[in-house]
């Protein structure tokens, strides 16, 4: 079973081209299976696309109160979540076993204290500059722009961070917090291994014990990162439950945390999990969007028109989106992994093909069946191979502030090669999904449109997977 899932077994079978229509592949999305306990207000459908098609700049929030936003917050989309950790009164929250509740509450308090402490920010800024290597550049992709002949494409170079991805932004913030909280042992889940490598790196830096849970399938397809983590001194535990991917690693990391509450800090790698993780990880990743805003202003004297980022759990996207939430002229596009196609049944597009439910501590869009059992996700990219998404994305989707689309395995592979060939930048397969959609729409946009695509990671880790899919033996 496990062996059958590896290697070519994960290549998509040929499927007829499926249109963009919202065909309800996942039964949970079918009308009538929407939870009846849910407030009616949350049944608001995806905002009508006409808002943006007609150039209207207001986010589609017909009635802010319906989404649980109080009058004081009505002018900003950046104040979420509420004190319960809910976005729009429904998504997010704290759905964990009672054993973990005191820890989650303690973490929230510790984070709020740190956030208000200038010394914490000073320390974080120091490490971000001198260890992570921030700020990361905003690069004008001249050759790709010329080849596509449309919008001006800029790339936010998160792949230039130490450890090769955006993951270190969040990990650096959380490790400093864990130290303030007196924790000595770190556990984390990882999919592609980028978060695991980033976590193992800071544990090496600060001399802390590190245990990384990684699905057995992912251990196989991301072996360079597994070796890296072990070199860094981490214990990598392969998880064989389920399909052996990120979802299973997350379950196992939570079990470890429950069993080792006294000394252990759970270092979540994305904008998901129980409150305060989604908000905290977003805050640590928002440096991406803040820099982008400044850098675009310096380069072009104005805001970008379109920002595109890949979505697995959604941390790189949330990081680049969040500083732009209150700039309604900036179109925000999250690209989910469509896998073999949105309607193929082998996808990781939780927002596009899932329905709201509760998993891993939060309520959010999930790939699930009519009985509320979680489906296995599929993506060529281990980092996007997850049946859920951060709860703030679910909310941004429902209110129409961000658009969520899909890019298939094949489109990502094509974009991977295009980016490498035209810009000399080998992107991570995760980021290649964002590039795929960005190149698709760039061709249709006027030449004065400013489009930013977040290059969330570098692709050295993926060359074996790509070679295999291209039929090249290394």
């Amino acid at each position, binding site marked *: 079973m496990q062996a059958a899932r590896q290697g070519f077994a994960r290549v998509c079978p040929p499927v007829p081209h499926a249109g963009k229509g919202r065909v309800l592949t996942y039964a*949970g999305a079918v009308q009538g*299976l929407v*939870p*009846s*306990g*849910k407030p009616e207000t949350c049944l608001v459908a995806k905002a009508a696309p006409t808002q943006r098609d007609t150039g209207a700049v207001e986010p589609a929030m017909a009635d802010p109160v319906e989404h649980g936003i109080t009058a004081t917050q009505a002018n900003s989309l950046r104040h979420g979540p509420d004190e*319960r950790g809910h976005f729009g009164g429904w998504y997010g*929250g*704290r*759905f*964990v*076993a*009672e*054993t*973990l*509740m*005191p*820890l989650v509450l303690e973490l929230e308090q510790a984070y709020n204290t740190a956030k208000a402490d200038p010394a914490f920010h000073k320390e974080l800024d120091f490490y971000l500059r001198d260890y992570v290597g921030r700020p990361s550049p905003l690069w004008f992709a001249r050759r790709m722009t010329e080849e596509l002949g449309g919008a001006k494409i800029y790339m936010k170079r998160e792949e230039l961070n130490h450890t090769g991805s955006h993951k270190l932004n969040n990990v650096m913030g959380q490790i400093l917090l864990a130290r303030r909280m007196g924790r000595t042992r770190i556990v984390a889940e990882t999919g592609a291994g980028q978060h695991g490598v980033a976590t193992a790196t800071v544990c090496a830096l600060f001399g802390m014990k590190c245990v990384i849970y990684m699905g057995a399938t992912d251990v196989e397809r991301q072996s360079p990162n597994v070796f890296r983590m072990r070199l860094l001194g981490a214990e990598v535990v392969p998880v064989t*439950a*389920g399909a052996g991917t990120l*979802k299973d690693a*997350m*379950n196992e990391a*939570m*079990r470890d945390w*429950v*069993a*080792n*509450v*006294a000394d252990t800090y759970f270092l979540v790698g994305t904008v998901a999990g129980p409150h305060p993780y989604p908000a905290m990880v977003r805050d640590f990743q928002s440096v991406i969007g803040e820099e982008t805003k400044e850098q675009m202003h310096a380069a072009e004297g104005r805001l970008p028109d379109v920002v595109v980022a890949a979505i697995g759990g959604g941390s790189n996207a949330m990081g680049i989106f969040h500083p732009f939430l209150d700039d309604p002229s900036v179109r925000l596009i999250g690209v989910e992994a469509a896998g073999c196609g949105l309607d193929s049944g082998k996808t990781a597009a939780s927002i596009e093909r899932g329905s709201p*439910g*509760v*998993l*891993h*501590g939060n*309520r959010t869009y*999930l790939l*699930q069946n*009519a*009985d*509320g*059992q*979680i489906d296995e996700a599929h993506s060529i990219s281990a980092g996007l191979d997850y049946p859920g998404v951060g709860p703030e994305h679910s909310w941004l989707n429902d209110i129409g502030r961000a658009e969520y689309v899909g890019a298939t395995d094949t489109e990502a592979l094509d974009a991977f090669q295009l980016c490498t060939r035209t810009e000399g930048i080998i992107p991570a397969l995760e980021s290649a999904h964002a590039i795929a959609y960005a190149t698709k729409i760039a061709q249709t946009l006027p030449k004065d449109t400013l489009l930013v695509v977040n290059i969330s990671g570098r692709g050295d880790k993926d060359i074996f997977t790509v070679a295999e899919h291209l039929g090249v033996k290394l």
Partner: protein
Amino acid sequence: MSRIAARFQSLAAQGRGALIPYLEAYDPDLETSLALLKAMPDAGADLIEIGMPFSDPSADGPVIQAAARRGLKAGATLPGVLAMVAEFRKDNAETPVILMGYLNPIEAYGYDRFCTDAAKAGVDGLIIVDLPPEEADVIEKPAEDAGLDIIRLVAPTTSDDRLRYVLSHASGFVYYVSITGITGTRAASTDDLKAALPRIRAATTLPVAIGFGIRSPQQAATAASIADGAVVASALLATLADTLDAEGKATAETLPRVLEQIKALATAVQAGTVSADQPA
């Protein structure tokens, strides 16, 4: 009076605690788990916990994870679990039945409809592992309207202040998770349990059952006499798993061996002896 309250009251009058065995619905198939459920009261079950299989049981250890996988493979759904309880109720009107599981399948079913259907099937209480009181507003009202108890888990990590808060949202009985960990992995000591109980009693008048890590008859007897009941889950599921054939199918051994184990647990609980220093 609810079946749960009535049962704890009559056991208290007998001067002993309750044995609460657990079975996973549809493990390894509907027929076997229904037969087990029906035979449990005669084997000595005072209350019964039925696990509702979930694809991602993140608070459970390997034994319950495997049982949930077998149950799902055999086609377990919430309507199927409720139908099992309804079938059980045809012959048994007294033994309280508690469903234990994770929130998402209930959310997918719909809170109002689930509580109504569960009560109609003869369910008495719900234990929802990943639903702290902070998020419980989605189900508290429908459960109360349907007459279902919401049984709350409390843990060694639960502070005194939090105990009062959590237990203000509890009904039926209190489930004390005796260890910080996942199900079926380790055991608390008798001393730890003896120290924990007064803390919980100070915060509630509800009966208290102890679970997580209770395996042997002696451990069950100790827990049931220190508290008001002992939940045994992983040990029974491990026995069941041990009787399955290579394809994971039930054999002639399956029911007799699990029931024999329940009888041994019941005998010890009914004798009510506290072991001095055995881990409970």
